[in-house]
């Protein structure tokens, strides 16, 4: 019997094989090869290249495009997380009330989640465009001067953050709705008996009991925001100049546009480490605050 169990233990591991082969070949191998390439001056296609040690890493910390992309990536990640979660909780609380058409409103808010971020980016072009943009049409209607929304890099970074947040706020809303529905009504009844005000109820009952939902939602938003790519390509292409690049789009640009594969590889690895650290700190921090129901 013991022998049978042991052999069962081993045969069951065969089920891993297809997945682990794929991971090994398309995740681990590229990762290791990336470490090697990041120490070379490879241009992306040539057969000959030199090992140049840590020079790429030294250069990237002095590269103002990298620094800019680094800051932007943080804004895309943190900004989207904050906006999506605040708005997500608000929408969830609003749409947890009973009223006619509630289902329809939820559907409409979730609908953009289905659309390719790339396509959303192109649609947004028709909003933020200077000469014919839909937003400037509203400004003109109010007899205000039109704004060249995407001409300024700093503003564009926030516009991209906002577009990303609004497109995916439906995810946070749905997670929070599920969270709200899991909170037992007795807590609120008890609070009513004690005469607690609605804002205190929210602060001391709803919010703490939503911690698991907050953890999930923050994790998803943060990872999504830090990976931001498609919508940037569609709406600003990383421009004006290099002002709105995230690390993802910058790597693409240096690799395919700049023929600096070794260098792009080094940026990729730094980005990898950076995102792993940020996500882990945030997720661990949040998990500690969860309360048991």
């Amino acid at each position, binding site marked *: 019997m013991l022998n049978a169990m042991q052999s069962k233990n081993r045969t069951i591991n065969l089920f891993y094989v297809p997945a682990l082969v794929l991971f090994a070949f398309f995740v681990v191998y590229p990762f290791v090869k990336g470490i090697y390439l990041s120490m070379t001056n490879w241009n992306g296609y040539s057969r000959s290249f030199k090992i140049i040690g840590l020079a790429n890493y030294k250069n990237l910390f002095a590269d103002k495009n990298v620094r800019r992309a680094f800051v932007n990536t943080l804004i895309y990640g943190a900004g989207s997380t904050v906006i999506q979660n605040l708005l997500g909780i608000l929408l969830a609380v609003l749409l947890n009330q009973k*009223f006619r058409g509630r289902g329809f409103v939820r559907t409409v808010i979730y609908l953009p989640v289905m659309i390719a971020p790339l396509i959303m980016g192109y649609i947004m072009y028709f909003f933020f465009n200077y000469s014919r943009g839909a937003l400037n049409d509203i400004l003109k209607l109010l007899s205000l001067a039109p704004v060249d929304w995407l001409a300024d890099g700093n503003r564009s970074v926030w516009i991209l953050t906002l577009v990303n947040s609004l497109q995916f706020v439906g995810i946070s809303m749905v997670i929070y709705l599920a969270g709200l529905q899991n909170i037992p009504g007795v807590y609120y009844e008890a609070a009513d008996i004690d005469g607690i005000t609605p804002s205190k109820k929210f602060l001391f009952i709803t919010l703490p009991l939503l911690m698991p939902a907050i953890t999930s939602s923050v994790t998803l938003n943060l990872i999504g925001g830090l990976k931001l790519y498609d919508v940037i390509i569609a709406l600003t292409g990383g421009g004006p100049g290099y002002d709105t690049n995230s690390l993802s789009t910058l790597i693409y640009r240096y690799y395919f546009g700049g023929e600096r594969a070794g260098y792009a590889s080094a940026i990729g690895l730094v980005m990898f480490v950076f995102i792993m650290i940020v996500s882990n700190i945030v997720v661990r921090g949040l998990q500690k605050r969860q309360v048991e129901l």
Partner: protein
Amino acid sequence: MRKANTVLRTIAIIAILAVFLAPFWILTTISFKPSTDTSSYWLLSSTPTLNNIKAAIEKAGIFGAIGRTALITVCVVVLEVIVSAFAAYPLARRSTRFNKVVQAFILGIMMVPPLSILVSLYSIIVSIHGVNQYWAVILVLLTYQLPQGIFLYANFIRSIPVALDEAATIDGCGPGRTFFLVIMPQLKPVTATVAILSSVNCWNDFQFSRYILQTSRMNTVTLSISSFFSQTYIDLSTATACALIAILPVVICFLVLQKYFIQGMIDSSVK
């Protein structure tokens, strides 16, 4: 007081609907506007036309792109269901140290921005002659979808009583037969979730397809649309009509299967 609340709520709801429907509205007005019509994007054209839609189908070949995207999506989803259900089985049923390492590794992959290893991944794809090959994009998409699938399946299998496995073992089933005869038949609901989530991801993928499928005759939906918006031989109205046609299948699927989409989203987010 109550009435004031209701009024406020109604105003908020109208504002929300306006913001979230505006992109779809603009997409529609432009798609049916003649390219010579310079009226505001907010307004439907006074002389609506089907020319953009026609150009999207005939000149831009959007249906071809939809077909190719559907092919890639179906392949990825089918493979993902099989491979991730397989991998989830030992993960859910055995808590050895090796399994814990695998679990941490899989969660780690979910966080990795794939573009951080773009250079080496692309060079590997070049060296295995995967550029402009459907199998390459399918395998890469599959790999990066797997963690989510494995995660969902593992959670689900954990909820199936181990007693069933043990009964099968006593009856002389090895792990293989236990999986196929006992576990697999119960996986239908979670399979729907996995399939739905990963088909949306594949349908909307841009970052992988962009560098693996470089020739325009293999363009997927997102690739065609990005090329239409950046090239001059097709005007913006046609590109917009393409976008409208391209999102229709997703929107319709979502409206019909909404319940599953949202449940899937919730299942995948609870860690």
